[in-house]
Each structure stands twice: as structure tokens, then as C-alpha cells.
């Protein structure tokens, strides 16, 4: 008898732990409560947990008090200075508040997957999408993908597939190129099915439901582990400096005043602190370092197409913002402007030909004073210029969309097309 008890003493706690953890993961009720303040903090947190997760985003986009809208982008979103869209919206109590999705390294593929867990927030709603030409590199464009990859998004994507579209097959191919996915037997098997145009079986669907349940719970438990102080440390102080009235010329004055103070140690109009830490140490080496940069041919164009298809599917009313590069800086680093503008034309062709006509193209404004905060990111006056498009966009409210998706943009032919005027005109 004593020996039998011995075994129970050893394994009883283990069994109990498993029962408890199963109960925790499968319990049908929500485990977390997100306050308005939590959401507000998360909206400018750039936390990877928030980006990868679902619970925080959905809590924000269904918030009844503040109307959070998704701002998709990359590193420019991090520049939380005085004229940042989040600051302006908060200061003037606009009818929207940006929920920033993206940071250095997030590109179309990460955004496409991220959208899969927030489709209700996109369906017949408005969104802003900031494009950086730097995404469209010829090689290694997916260097940061692994950092932003989330199994939950993959599960949601798989579950959202009703009939397999060209985009789904394209995304399946792209995902299988990523090690994290090809190494995982479960996901690799299901995604290979999609790639081969086979629909998932009932068992697959049930397994996905179970996975989803576990991952959502994990997300609920851990996604607000984002100890971000950006709101208190950057947004709050910025609010105080802004003019009382929401007026463009007053804002311009303030932007110039602030920018003047923060620049001056370099001839490029780059913010002093950025120049000192990120540029100066290798300043000599950077001369002509970008002469071989070329954004005209990239598989990113097709990833971007997947994003467009998702917007079309959800009838999302989107404002696209195309960022410039710092003109003086690109001259110093030898960036070929002609090639750069051609890549912008390629993006615009892809947008316009499919009915995405809300485009704020600032690609030619990188030479204006205080427009750029550093080498490739909009700052002070750049944000104000963006605001003159963003503010009316939301004041107008949601407009019916009329998108016509063309799957040819998923092709290698489009990815590799040289965007000369004639080539662009002839591409159908």
C-alpha cells in the first residue's frame, strides 16, 4: 500500500498540473480585462506581442469610446514626435485615433497575416497604409519576417480560407519558404495543401479550431505583457507643446520651431540625435553606399498585392501614403533617384489600376525643409503634410469601395517588370 502511495505522491501533482493547464486553456470565458488606458498604451506601444496577437487589437477596434483605426506601416511609425498622427488625433480629439501596427522590419507579408485576425476591423471600415519603397528590395526582403511571425495569424488565415484563391496559393508558397513554417510539420502539411489547391479536411478544421483556442488563450494571457511607456513618455509631453487650435499654419509654425531646435549638427536636416548615433560613426563609409540600391524588382510587389486583395475582400476604404526619402541624404549616398521614382510609379500603377485611388504620394517632397526627420522617415512637416490627407479622409467617413483585383500582380512577371512608363502602361 505504501508503495502505491509513493507513485501517487510523485505523479499526482503532475496529473493535477496537466488538468489545470488544460482547463485554463480550454475554459470558455475570457481571462483578461483590458482598460481604456491599456488600449491607449498599446496603440503606440510597437510591442511585438500586440502586433502578433489578436486580443489587444480586437479590443481596440471594438472600443466604444475611442474609434481606433489601423495604421499599417513600418519604422516611420516609431517617430513619435510632436506632429505624429497619433499625437495630432489625441490632441484635437479627432473622430479617430491611430492604432499603430508596424515597426522596423514589418512588410506586406507580415501585414497580410496580421490582417487575418482583425478582419472585422477592416470590413467596410477605414484604414491608413504607409508604404516605404525600402520594402521593395531585390533580395533578403524578408529578413525580419521571423520576428513578426505568429502561429495564431497563420491559423486564422487558414481558417478564413473558404475557397482557395490565387492569393491564398501565393501566400502558401511564400510561407513555405520561411523556415519557421517549413520546419513545423503541422503547419507545413496544411499549407502545402493550400498551395496544391486542395481544401482542408474536416479533421484539419477541427485541429485548427483547437489550435486557435490555445493560441488565443496564450495571447490573452501574454499580449498585455507589453510594458510600453510610449504614451506617457512621448505622446503626453508632445500634446502639451501643440497649439490650442487645430490649424495647419499654426501647426507648421510649431513644427518649424521644434525642428529648428532639433537639427543643425549636419547639412542634411537630419535630427541631431539620430545623426550623432546612427550616421556619424560611419559617415565616410556611407558616401555613395546606396548607389546600387534598386527597388524596382522585388517579390514584395506580390506580397503587397496580397494586402490589396485582403482590403478588397473586406471592402476596406484605405488611404495609402507613399513616403519620400531625404533628398540631400540620398544625393550623398548616391541613391539613383530615377530608379526610385520608377519604383514609386510601379506601386502607384498597381494601386490605381485596381481602383485604390486614395493615394497621398509624397515621394517628390523629400527635399522640403524639415519634411524628413532623418534619412528615410517623415518627421515634423512631413507628418503635417500627411495630416492634411489623413484628417479629411476620416472626416469624410467610410466611402463605398470599388476595387477590381487583378491576380496578374502576383506573377513573377510583375515582380520583375522594369517599371518604365511603357512597360507599366502595357502591363495588364
Amino acid at each position, binding site marked *: 500500500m505504501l*508503495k502505491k502511495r*509513493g*507513485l501517487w*505522491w*510523485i*505523479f499526482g*501533482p*503532475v496529473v493535477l498540473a496537466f488538468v489545470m493547464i488544460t482547463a485554463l486553456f480550454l475554459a470558455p470565458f475570457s481571462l483578461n480585462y483590458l482598460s481604456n488606458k491599456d488600449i491607449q498604451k498599446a496603440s503606440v506601444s510597437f510591442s511585438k506581442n500586440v502586433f502578433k496577437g489578436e486580443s489587444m487589437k480586437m479590443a481596440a477596434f471594438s472600443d466604444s469610446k475611442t474609434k481606433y483605426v489601423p495604421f499599417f506601416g513600418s519604422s516611420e511609425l516609431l517617430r513619435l514626435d510632436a506632429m505624429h498622427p497619433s499625437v495630432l488625433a489625441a490632441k484635437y480629439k479627432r473622430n479617430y485615433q491611430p492604432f499603430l501596427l508596424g515597426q522596423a522590419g514589418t512588410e506586406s507579408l507580415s501585414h497580410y497575416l496580421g490582417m487575418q485576425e482583425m478582419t472585422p476591423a477592416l470590413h467596410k471600415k477605414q484604414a491608413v497604409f504607409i508604404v516605404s519603397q525600402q520594402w521593395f528590395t531585390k533580395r533578403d526582403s524578408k529578413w525580419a519576417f521571423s520576428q513578426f511571425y505568429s502561429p495564431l495569424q497563420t491559423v486564422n488565415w487558414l481558417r478564413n480560407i473558404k475557397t482557395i484563391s490565387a492569393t491564398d496559393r501565393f501566400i502558401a508558397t511564400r510561407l513555405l519558404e520561411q523556415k519557421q513554417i517549413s520546419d513545423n*510539420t503541422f503547419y507545413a502539411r496544411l499549407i502545402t495543401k493550400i498551395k496544391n489547391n486542395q481544401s482542408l479536411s474536416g479533421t484539419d478544421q477541427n485541429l485548427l479550431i483547437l489550435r486557435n483556442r490555445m493560441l488565443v488563450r496564450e495571447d490573452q494571457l501574454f499580449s498585455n505583457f507589453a510594458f510600453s511607456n510610449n504614451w506617457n513618455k512621448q505622446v503626453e509631453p508632445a500634446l502639451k507643446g501643440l497649439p490650442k487650435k487645430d490649424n495647419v499654419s499654426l501647426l507648421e509654425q510649431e513644427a518649424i520651431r521644434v525642428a529648428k531646435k532639433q537639427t543643425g549638427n549636419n547639412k542634411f536636416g537630419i535630427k541631431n540625435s539620430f545623426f550623432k*548615433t546612427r550616421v*556619424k*560613426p*560611419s559617415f565616410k563609409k556611407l558616401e555613395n553606399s546606396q548607389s546600387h540600391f534598386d527597388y524596382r524588382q522585388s517579390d514584395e510587389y506580390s506580397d503587397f498585392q496580397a494586402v490589396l486583395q485582403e482590403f478588397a475582400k473586406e471592402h476596406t476604404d484605405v488611404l495609402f501614403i507613399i513616403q519620400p526619402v531625404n533628398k540631400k541624404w540620398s544625393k550623398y549616398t548616391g541613391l539613383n533617384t530615377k530608379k526610385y521614382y520608377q519604383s514609386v510609379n510601379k506601386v502607384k500603377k498597381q494601386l490605381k489600376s485596381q481602383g485604390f485611388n486614395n493615394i497621398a504620394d509624397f515621394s517628390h517632397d523629400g527635399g522640403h525643409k524639415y519634411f524628413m526627420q532623418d534619412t528615410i522617415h517623415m518627421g515634423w512637416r512631413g507628418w503635417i503634410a500627411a495630416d492634411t490627407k489623413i484628417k479629411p479622409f476620416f472626416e469624410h467617413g467610410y466611402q463605398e469601395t470599388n476595387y477590381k483585383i487583378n491576380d496578374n500582380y502576383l506573377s513573377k512577371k510583375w515582380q520583375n517588370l522594369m517599371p518604365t512608363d511603357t512597360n507599366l502602361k502595357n502591363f495588364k
Partner: protein
Amino acid sequence: MLNLQPYADPQYFIILLLALIPLAVGLYFGKRFAWYEVVVSLVFIFLMFDGEKYHEGIALIIYMIWQWLLVWSYTLYRKRNNQTWIFYSATILAILPLVLIKVAPVADWAKVSSLLGFMGISYLTFRSVGMVMEIRDGSIQAFNPWNFLRFMLFMPTISSGPIDRYRRFVKDIESAPERDKYIEMLGKAVKYFFLGFLYKFIISHVLGTLLMPNVEKLAILSAHVHGGWSWWIIAYMYIYGLNLFFDFAGYSLFAVATGYVMGIEVPMNFNMPFLSKNLKDFWNRWHMTLSFWFRDFVFMRLVFLMMKKKWFKSRVTTSNIAYIINMLVMGFWHGLKWYYIAYGLFHGIGLVVNDMWLRYKKKHKLPHNKFTNALAIIITFNVVMVSFLLFSGILDKIWFHSFR
């Protein structure tokens, strides 16, 4: 294709423990199902080296045939004769595959790496070299091909140790433990598994996956700005060093626990190394099966050799030289990189200094109390951390590779 890397994720533990249930039930009732143990081991080894890693699997088979023939023929030879040069040749031949693997990346022999390389080659080499030496000593006398395979390919420890000894291992597999003893082992196994989960999946995840990449980036970036040095390097040093412990100690705990479930008392690898009072104490607590292996098969043998040949008059010189060679060999074993070798040299010199200090302390009857104890622990910890900073290779990245 299903591929299972040892102790990599929760799924692995579930599959592993389910597979071990029949074995455990047998052991509980005093029976050891040797054939079942071998089949399970082989299946899991196959799952480690299948799919994309099939060439590692083939390398493992080639390697095993090599070692098997070598150890067998040396045992046969040793029964009749005992020439030194044959012993040296056998030892060299046993180490040869490992040496080739270590030289391959430096010499750019891609073919050698893919033909001979597999995960765990070092740990198998320790086992077979240890056997060759014990055969020479006469403490292993017969070659049992079956036991040899079970020892070499013992699944829980195949890829990263702990390094067991043949005679100890064989004693375990020849019988089943008593029921009380086995229950005690199961209790320890559960404890070690969960401690391992804490170490590897929680602490090491925070340190190694969440913190380390960011701190490394900051360290490299700001060192780049400030001419090769930054305070972030210090932060990186502690994070790297602590992570090294929690990651490896967690892994070792899994291997030991799995061994216990299989009724084998795999030796422990760590014994609170950061509470060591001096460097010698540290090596008795850190990666113990490796350092004891080096102590028994490198250090001691060097000392005996040097004493026998009377190369040095003083015992102190003899042991100092043995320390330095011993640690240098360990450094080389980690890889042919300057920072691994420097790490070995650092510890070799460290042990010499440590011995000097201990002699000085004894002679001068220095005070010994709680406070000096704590101070000793703090100093040892920090010295060890500095050595891990060397070991991490971050200095190589900062100093010798331009940062993009």
C-alpha cells in the same frame, strides 16, 4: 517527415514519455526490457536524423562502425600485448573524426563536414576515447559489442551529454533497480523535468530569446560608436553567461531525468556552479561530466606522464603546466576560434593563479569567515562571467568584423 529534436518542445516530452511507459512499467516490476529500450532509442535517434538531416544519420552510422571496429580491435590487441605506440595510435584514431570535423570549417572542407558531421559527435568521442584509455589501464577487459552500442547510443544523452562512463553505465543496464530505488528515481526524474522546464523554457527563454538579441544589437551598435567598447557589453556578458547556464543545465536535467525513467543513473552535469568559491571549485560544479572527463583522461594522465619522465623537478610546475594544457585542449575542443582558445587559456591561467592563492592563503593563515566566503563567491562568479564573455564570441564580432 516527422523530425524530433531532443527536448526541443513540449510535444517531444509527451511523445518521449509515452514511448517510455512500457519500459517504466517493466522496471517497476523489476524487469528491464533491453530490446524495447534499444528499439525506442533507435526510433528516437532515427527521428533526430531523418528528413533534411539524413546525411547526419549516415555520418553517425559511419562513425559508429569506425569506433566499434577500433575499440573492438584494441581490446583484442590489449589482451595479448600493451605497446605504448599502439595505444597512442588507437587514441588518435578514435579522436580523428572529431578533429577532422573541428578543422573542416577553418580549412573550408565542406565535404568533410557533410560526410562526417552529426550532432553529438563530440560526446560520442568522449565516450569511446574514455573506453580506449580504460582498456589500456586494464579496467575494461572484454569487449561486449551489444553493451558498447547501448553505451554509445544511449538516446537521452546522445546529442549533448552528460558524459557517462562505460563501467558505470554497464552496471546499471545489467540489472533493474530495486522497486524502492526506482520509485525514488522516478521522483527525482519528475523534479528534474520540471526544474528543467523552468530553466530552459522560462528563464532561458527570457534571457536568451527575449533579452539577448536586443542587448547584443545594442552592444555591437554602441561599441561601434564608441570605438570598440560600451557598457552594454557588460550587460551582455551577464545575460549570456546566465543564459548559458540555464539553457545547458536545463538540457542536462532533461537528459538525466529521461535516463532515470529508463532506470539509468546518468551523472549530473551541474551543481550550483555560481556558488563556487574559487575556480577549481567552479570546475567541480560546472559541466561536471566534461570537466571530470578532462580531469581523469587529460589532466591526471599528463601529470603522471610528466612525473614518470621527470620533466620538471617541482610538483607545482608540473600541475601548472598540466592545468594550462588541459584547459587549452578543452578550448580547442570547443572549436578552432581564437576566442575559444583564449577562453581555455584564461581558465588554465586562472587555475594556476587559483592554486598560487590557495598556497599563499594556507601559508599566511588568512582570516576565513562568512564575509570572505561571500567575497570569494562574488569574485569567482565575475571571473567566470568574464571568461564567458570571451567564449560568447561577441568580442570577435565587435573587433574583427565590420558591422553592417
